[in-house]
């Protein structure tokens, strides 16, 4: 292997791009592992209500707005602790009358996705009672609803059938923001709305607070899925997992194939025949169905699947490629020299023959990496991904299961797919480039 040849590789601009992309992916992977620790990523991806309630469902990423003339809404969240919120408190009976006025500035060109109000209250016996009303920018007031709030209470305006009827048959997220004069308008009225919460408590120490969430149609840099989870978590964490799986599987299979091919050629005879026969049996073993069987019967754990992948690939077709080259190497004079000074067979195989094939091995294993990255995604799409890990394949699986392409949630499918594509292309461009540099005679015909 001529290391100065490595310089030659930078003559190819695509290879430089590939190397840069791989470095970027490795950088993202390292950043992710430190920024979102493993345990945190897993608990986030399990997706409890408390983690994700502030996100809209199936929202596209925020950068979608850069390409649009009419701006889609982002989520607006205002808690009653916000300085813009006015709170008035007067004693009433045994408790207090508490009134909040929450201003909502709405400047988008499309209706929000949903409107929810999350209440938290503390009381000793009787829960506080509140009435909500909504004031449009022109000052028109609509009474929404009255209810009493236990410890935690969530009011979801779109699910309030009475309110929908009051708004003339449209859900609250549209009806509350629409122009009352122009029923057919597809655009919301821009301006500052107000949510008024009038409450009474029934004991002196009782109090309540609220959080208004006007869900938008965009969220985060990556968007959200059907469980309101931020796809960014899975896109980031998918990177180290994909790289690790691809790298380990590619190194494991190509190294073992190299060793087996070396042993097979050197010893020849019965050993060689046996190994050739095993390779043929391996060829009719259905790889993916067997992996599916192992995944279903034993374990979805990524390490079990990884080991199975390597075991099933040990006697793969790579052996034949390596064997063909080893047959030439075996006859070369330096091997004869090693033999004549009495080198043992293992020494010849491992010290003299195998290192000779490293230039052939490196490009081949780099080209193999994408195969395994895509294999991991395939298994995830078939429902055999590691159940706890957020991966790119898992996102595609979720999007397929929820009909993302059919519903027009393209970002959901495209983000993980583009990452997979970039990873695959980068590794194979670099692999082919290295191949041209290391093995010029083999490729440039």
């Amino acid at each position, binding site marked *: 292997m001529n290391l100065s040849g490595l310089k030659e590789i930078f003559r190819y601009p695509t290879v430089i791009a590939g190397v840069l992309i791989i470095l970027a992916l490795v950088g993202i992977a390292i950043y992710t592992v430190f920024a979102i620790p493993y345990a945190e990523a897993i608990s986030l991806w399990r997706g409890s209500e408390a983690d994700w309630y502030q996100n809209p469902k199936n929202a596209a990423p925020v950068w979608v707005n850069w390409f649009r003339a009419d701006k889609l809404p982002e989520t607006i969240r205002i808690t009653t602790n916000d300085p813009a919120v006015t709170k008035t408190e007067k004693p009433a009976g045994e408790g207090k009358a508490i009134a909040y006025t929450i201003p909502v500035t709405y400047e988008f060109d499309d209706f929000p996705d949903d409107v929810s109000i999350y209440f938290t209250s503390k009381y000793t016996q009787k829960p506080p009672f509140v009435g909500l009303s909504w004031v449009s920018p022109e000052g028109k007031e609509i009474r929404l609803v009255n209810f009493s709030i236990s410890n935690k209470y969530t009011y979801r305006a779109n699910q309030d059938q009475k309110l929908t009827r009051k708004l003339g048959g449209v859900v609250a997220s549209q009806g509350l923001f629409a122009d009352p004069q122009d029923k057919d308008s597809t655009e919301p009225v821009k301006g500052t709305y107000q949510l008024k919460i009038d409450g009474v408590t029934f004991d002196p120490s009782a109090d309540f607070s609220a959080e208004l969430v006007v869900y938008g149609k965009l969220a985060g840099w990556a968007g959200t899925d059907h469980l309101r989870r931020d796809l960014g978590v899975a896109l980031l964490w998918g990177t180290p997992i994909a790289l690790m799986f691809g790298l380990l599987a590619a190194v494991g299979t190509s190294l073992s194939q190299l060793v087996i091919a070396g042993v097979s050629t050197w010893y020849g005879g019965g050993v060689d025949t046996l190994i050739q026969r095993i390779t043929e049996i391996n060829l009719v*073993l259905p790889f*993916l169905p*067997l992996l599916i069987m192992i995944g279903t019967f034993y374990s979805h754990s990524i390490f079990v699947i990884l080991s199975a992948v390597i075991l099933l690939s040990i006697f793969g077709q790579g052996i034949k490629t390596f064997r063909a080259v080893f047959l030439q190497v075996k006859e070369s004079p330096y091997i004869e020299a090693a033999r004549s000074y009495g080198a043992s067979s293992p020494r010849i195989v491992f010290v003299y023959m195998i290192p000779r094939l490293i230039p052939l091995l490196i490009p081949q294993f780099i080209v193999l990496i994408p195969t395994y990255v895509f294999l991991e995604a395939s298994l995830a799409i078939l429902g055999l991904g590691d159940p706890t890990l957020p991966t790119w394949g898992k996102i595609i699986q979720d999007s397929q299961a929820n009909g993302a392409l059919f519903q027009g949630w393209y970002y959901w499918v495209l983000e993980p*797919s583009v990452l997979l594509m970039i990873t695959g*292309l980068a590794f194979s461009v670099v692999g082919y480039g290295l191949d041209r540099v290391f093995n010029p005679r083999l490729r440039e015909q």
Partner: protein
Amino acid sequence: MATSSPLESAPAGQEVKPKSGRTSTFLRVVRYSGVRLLTLAITVTIGLYLTILIANMGGYVDKIRLAQIREDVNARLAGSPSLRTLSAEARAKCSQDLIQNQVHRLGMDQPFVLRSLGFLKDAVTLNLGRAFHMTSNSGSNTVRLIILERLPPTLVLFGAADIVLFFMSIFAALALSRNYGKFFDKVSVAMTPLSSAPGWFYGIFLILLFASVLKVLPFGGMVDSPPPPTAIGYFLSLLKHLTLPVLAYTLSLIFLNIFTWRTFFLIYSSEDYVEMAKAKGLSANDIQNRYILRPTLPTIITSFALLMIVSWTGAPIFETIFNWPGLGRALYQAVGLFDTPVIIGETVIFSFLLAITVFVLDLVYAFVDPRVKVGGEGSQ
């Protein structure tokens, strides 16, 4: 099979020996195929045995058989009027005894080595048991029927895709090998890394483009629902549904294929006999068909065989993405339902399909490889 197997042949052609043909070409091909069939049968049997070993490591095959026995026995007891008068315990005991009897009769109390041979016989004879949840369209839960019903769609899909891929690759590779180093040749070589993504992956993009955005082709499935009544209508609808999967399949494999085959053609077009033919003044077409294409075919078929094997095993995911009602999607559904007999049955069937693919390509190989056809020496 030894050295002449298409899956390990080195570039052939040079070693054509003008042998005194005592046996006819046909007989030689038959003998060659017979030997290949026999070795493949042994290979498949060992492959199936390995599958059984893997499936049985967690005792799943036993569980399936025991469940089946229990079901049979209980069904028989429930249907027998003479046992209806017995008390619950007596009936339970009776059923226990019968199950024990059956277990003994079927040899399930024997050591695993003996039993595994029984499983092997079941697998070879396609006696695959009954599904837990899945049924065939006719309502049967026999795994063999479920699988046989799904086989034709898979064959149609991959048959069509492989034919399109084969001919497109061969024409493109020939054209590029003639125009070596020109613009299109360079473009096609630069596109080779695109083959690192599998077919299903391009499927997602194509569905997005042609089904979601342009709305000109269906999202998936094999025919319209309800299926068109006339044969022509059915065929057209099938073609429409085939377009995207075939396109995705071709897109994912064609560039690497063209690159490899073009290299083969380049190797063979620099042979001395090609120069000789040129010197004789043969037409470019004759040279291409007789002196370049012909000796390259065995090598190309070898490379195509390997490719087909890889694509067969990718069927579960490919068919799932395109909602194609074939074997692969049945496997996906079986995973979802945890239907173990179907999963094992599918794995067995895929082993058979791989072996049949290898055999069919061997046959084709026997007909195009001059060593088998002319000499008989090369095939040993």
